[in-house]
């Protein structure tokens, strides 16, 4: 653990390992598919036409680069409550302005262009909050591919606007009734589909997890976030950011922001897990804070589980963070100490959701609100010339129904007390 690597950006090794994490823990049926995917991705990476196609679609279809926005009123509110001279300058990386409303589309674009190169006609995906499903359905519509999205039945109910969106985009949404009927079970079901339809199907995984090469590949596609931030911070502030903050479910928006900065020792990096009802409540989704290394969904990583190695059910107010694991590279960054992993509760996220809406006219996704909740605390403890970048990974329109119900319920509770 004290063994600090010379660089944090060279992983994974050829077996897909980040330290002890990662790997290829899949059924034999899938192994040849994963090897051929790895080969196709290595070839694509070396092909300038592939990079050019991604860049063109990023600019003209997704709307990149996304702005780096100085959240002036949020910063002022932090400073008003902070000790004298304290209160970092908070910037928001506006990934919610991407087409489809979140960072998810960055990864999907890369994978769909890869699927086209490989001649795959049928795309499957798992989704939690529905953001990855919507992004996948969108790009399948754009490129004329068949799209099947697996979504836990519980998530179908709490993220109905995204279900309707996916259906409008021509995707088939299959509600998953097995297990806890959330993201983990959707991923199980997508893997079962892939093992059945090996010839024509491309599995578009939505986060930096799964068997190698997915964690590295998805990270590469998301790293556009961090690369843009480097340039934008130089332009706006004449320096690199002093700190980065992002929410973590599987951890793709965080990995995309963090990765280009891992070797910049001056940059403090914070990941924020979902603490649900609290880390000691047993009802949370904080794999690093409350889990330990295990093997699930193709990789070794921190997982929530019981003493017998049975995977626990995660809980979070946010469907996108409601997963009992985390990408393997995060597990490694935690163990090496390069990234500090914190958490925010449902209640804190809900408060930040309202705070940003009120102060900046930006309704954040409940996922991103977890990052905001810790960011305001961290900012209050840092000097005013400290530049902090918070990844605003998604927009909150999808959460409005759920939030209004929660607020109505808490008002009622308050009135009764």
């Amino acid at each position, binding site marked *: 653990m004290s063994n600090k690597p010379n660089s944090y950006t060279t992983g994974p090794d050829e077996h897909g390992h980040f330290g002890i994490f990662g790997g290829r*823990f899949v*059924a034999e*049926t*899938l*192994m040849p598919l994963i090897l051929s995917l790895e080969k196709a991705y290595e070839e694509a990476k070396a092909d300038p036409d592939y990079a050019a196609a991604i860049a063109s679609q990023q600019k003209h279809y997704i709307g990149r680069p996304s702005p780096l926005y100085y959240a002036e009123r949020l910063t002022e509110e932090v400073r008003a409550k902070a000790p004298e001279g304290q209160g970092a300058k908070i910037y928001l990386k506006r990934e919610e302005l991407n087409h489809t409303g979140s960072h998810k589309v960055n990864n999907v674009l890369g994978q769909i262009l890869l699927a086209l190169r490989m001649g795959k006609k049928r795309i499957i995906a798992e989704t939690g909050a529905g953001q990855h499903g919507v992004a996948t359905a969108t790009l399948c519509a754009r490129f004329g591919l068949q799209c099947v999205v697996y979504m836990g039945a519980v998530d179908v109910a709490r993220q109905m606007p995204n279900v309707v969106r996916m259906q409008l985009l021509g995707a088939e949404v299959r509600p998953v009734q*097995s297990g806890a009927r959330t993201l983990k079970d959707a991923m199980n079901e997508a893997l*079962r589909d892939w093992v*059945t*339809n090996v010839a024509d199907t491309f599995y578009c995984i939505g986060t930096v997890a799964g068997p190698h090469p997915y964690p590295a590949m998805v990270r590469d596609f998301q790293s556009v976030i961090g690369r843009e931030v480097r340039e934008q911070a130089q332009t706006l502030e004449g320096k690199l950011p002093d700190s980065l903050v992002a929410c973590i479910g599987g951890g793709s928006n965080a990995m995309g922001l963090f990765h280009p900065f891992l070797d910049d020792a001056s940059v403090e990096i914070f990941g924020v897990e979902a603490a649900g009802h609290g880390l000691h409540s047993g009802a949370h989704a904080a794999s690093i804070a409350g889990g330990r290394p295990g*093997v699930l969904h193709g990789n070794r990583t921190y997982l929530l589980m019981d003493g017998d190695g049975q995977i626990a059910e995660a809980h979070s107010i946010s469907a996108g963070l409601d997963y009992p694991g985390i990408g393997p590279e995060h597990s490694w960054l935690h163990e090496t100490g390069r990234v500090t992993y914190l958490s925010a509760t449902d209640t804190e996220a809900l408060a930040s959701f309202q705070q940003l809406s009120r102060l900046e006219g930006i309704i954040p996704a409940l996922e991103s609100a977890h990052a905001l909740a810790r960011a305001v605390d961290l900012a209050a403890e840092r000097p005013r010339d400290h530049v902090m970048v918070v990844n605003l990974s998604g927009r909150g329109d999808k959460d409005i129904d759920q939030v209004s119900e929660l607020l109505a319920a808490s008002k009622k509770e308050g009135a009764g007390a």
Partner: protein
Amino acid sequence: MSRIERRFELLRTEGRSALLTFITAGDPDYDTSLAVIKALPEAGADIIEIGMPFTDPMADGPAIQLAAQRALKGGQTLVRTLDLVRELREQDDDTPVILMGYYNPIYIYGVDRFLADAKEAGVDGFIVVDLPPEEDGELCLPALRAGLSFVRLATPTTDDARLPSVLANTSGFVYYVSITGVTGTAVPDFDAVAASVARIKRHTDLPVVVGFGVRSGDHAAAIARGADGVVVGSAVVDALRNSLDAEGRATENTVPAVSALVRELAEGVRSVSKDT
């Protein structure tokens, strides 16, 4: 000679294929599953596969998913699964027992401790679905060093180029997965399976057994013509499930129901006599 080798040797002299039956440990409770397993050799099972229940059985269809859920709800753990084998061994020291499942519960138990405890309990080998040859250092090689078999799955996607690496560290026998898909969801194409078994046999002298999708005595007979063994899982688990009461509890019919199906399957396998 290991129990597995002795069993296949015996079957060769009898001129027939093996019947391997799968049952999930602790489904729906420990005592019932022990009674079911104890009745298997008598009913005609030549090798017993015991499923180690896991919350996230990614390679299994609905039948075995539900069996795992019933077992976990009934309090089954890996320790209790080893207890089952230990109790079976009190009455049967000849029938090979293979534990089948997913890696995480073993990893959390601790690989070295698990191998020692499994060996002591009377386990002969393992099939761990999510450990391909690329992860042989995790459990396969330690198991071989401990004198236990690690049975590999070969599948329709395992081509000739890959087959040698799949067979390299496999021991006991090779398990050919007859379909691309999860357990118990499709009936295999018997001609294609026979061709695949022949292909694998060109690469190895180990017995080749076939599973996934075998549901009846007729299926078993069709597979037994080309393969050294036939594995039946979901159909056995379904027979058990259909014997449960409305609350999912075992009934007096549970053990007989499973035994009856196993007898039918055994007749199918034994109806095919093979030259030695």
